[in-house]
């Protein structure tokens, strides 16, 4: 496949991937070939969630997606969430609640929380825990992350009402 190319649609933009080994993970291609390093790589075996992206509406680990099989998929990374450089409500709530310490797990969590709230705007505490159970944070102990999600949830409900 080295002389061929494939096309990925990431954050609404088509990217041609050329001269790539076909077995590369989507995580690798995003970071090293498409210049989108917001998605983080740690375990590379689907345990930590730091590489979470949205693919065709599902939150998945990009380390477990063979990039060359993701043609025709709609891929959204953490870079695709902010509008005009302004933080999203979820990103702002993580800042406000102190849900960020070292920051390495943050992009994956932000993507997972957007996926949750877009699907279920009023999740219970248990549903929040379930939704981010695949995103491991070694700094915060999760308390401020849960608080950030609750703040984003409540703010969306208030804006709606």
């Amino acid at each position, binding site marked *: 496949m080295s002389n061929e190319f494939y096309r990925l649609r990431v954050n609404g933009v088509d990217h041609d991937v050329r001269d790539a080994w076909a077995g590369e993970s989507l995580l690798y291609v995003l970071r090293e070939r498409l210049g989108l390093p917001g998605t983080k790589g740690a375990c590379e075996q689907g345990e930590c969630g730091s590489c979470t992206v949205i693919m065709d509406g*599902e939150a998945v680990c990009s380390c477990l997606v063979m990039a060359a099989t993701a043609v025709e998929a709609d891929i959204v990374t953490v870079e695709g969430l902010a509008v005009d450089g302004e933080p999203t409500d979820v990103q702002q709530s993580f800042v406000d609640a102190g849900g960020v310490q070292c920051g390495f797990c943050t992009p994956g969590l932000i993507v997972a929380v957007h996926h949750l709230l877009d699907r279920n705007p009023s999740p219970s505490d248990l549903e929040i825990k379930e939704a981010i159970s695949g995103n491991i944070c070694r700094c915060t102990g999760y308390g401020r992350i849960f608080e950030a999600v609750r703040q984003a949830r409540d703010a969306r409900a208030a804006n709606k009402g």
Partner: protein
Amino acid sequence: MRSPIGDHSSEHWHMSITNATTIDEALAALAVNPKARVIQGGTDLMVEVNFNRTTIDSVVSLRRVAELRRWHVDDDAHTLRIGAGVPYAEMERPPLCDHAPALAEAARTVGSPQIRAAGSLGGNLGTCSPAGDGLPVLSALDAVVHLRSQSGSRDVSVHDFMVGVKRNVRRGDELIVAVTVPLVTGFQGYAKVGTRNAMVISAASACLVHDAVAGTVRLALGAVAPTVVRARGAEAWLASQTSLVGTPMVSEALAREFGARAAAECSPIDDHRSTAEYRRHAISVLAQRLLLRAATGSATALRGIRQ
């Protein structure tokens, strides 16, 4: 992050990928190259690739094959047919979870939400790990595995399909297209233990299916033998001790003996996840617990998770 470029020598640089959109396209690619690796959700194969545990020269991807993501209930035959690519995330939610509750319970124990959005029974069967969470359920339900190739179709009992650790009878030119399980009236449940309570690969697992109409209890054990095994001795012994039609009368002593007999039927090993001794003990507890749950009709609640 590891560089896949640096880690792969030039002879492995050329790798062909078939992004099939239909079963026929996938079968055509497999007919040409039966050594091609089949990828559905990627949760097994990509770990091998990322850690350079395998060299691959061609891949057939099923991600875009919509036919494999369908399931349907046959009301006349009282069966449920699940496409090989249906993700666990779908099995754990209504309406599919209502048709095979043990499968839903097993699906909820698989990895994280991200993994459950990708993983499938086709992948579980294809990889055929003794610790695969879907496999004890398929065994306890006497599932049939549907295989297809360009030269025809065949149906294989799940018991004959699994032949060893990560070994099954799928030929290289064949695709696992679906499994069929019976719709059973009565309790069914799945339980497992690992080194923690979530995001964990089973150290031991068990699935119990009570057919309250036929009066049978079927128990399958995972991660305690080269393949998932049925505790047929314990099943037969239980049937000889008490009527299993309707809600069974099960004393704690009976359940304990059932668990002990089930534990005697497995052949666990010591490995990085657990020890043979612990696994055997765990099976006795899981089998006992599942039988008591069957007797009290207490299915595990979803505990407030709306899916």
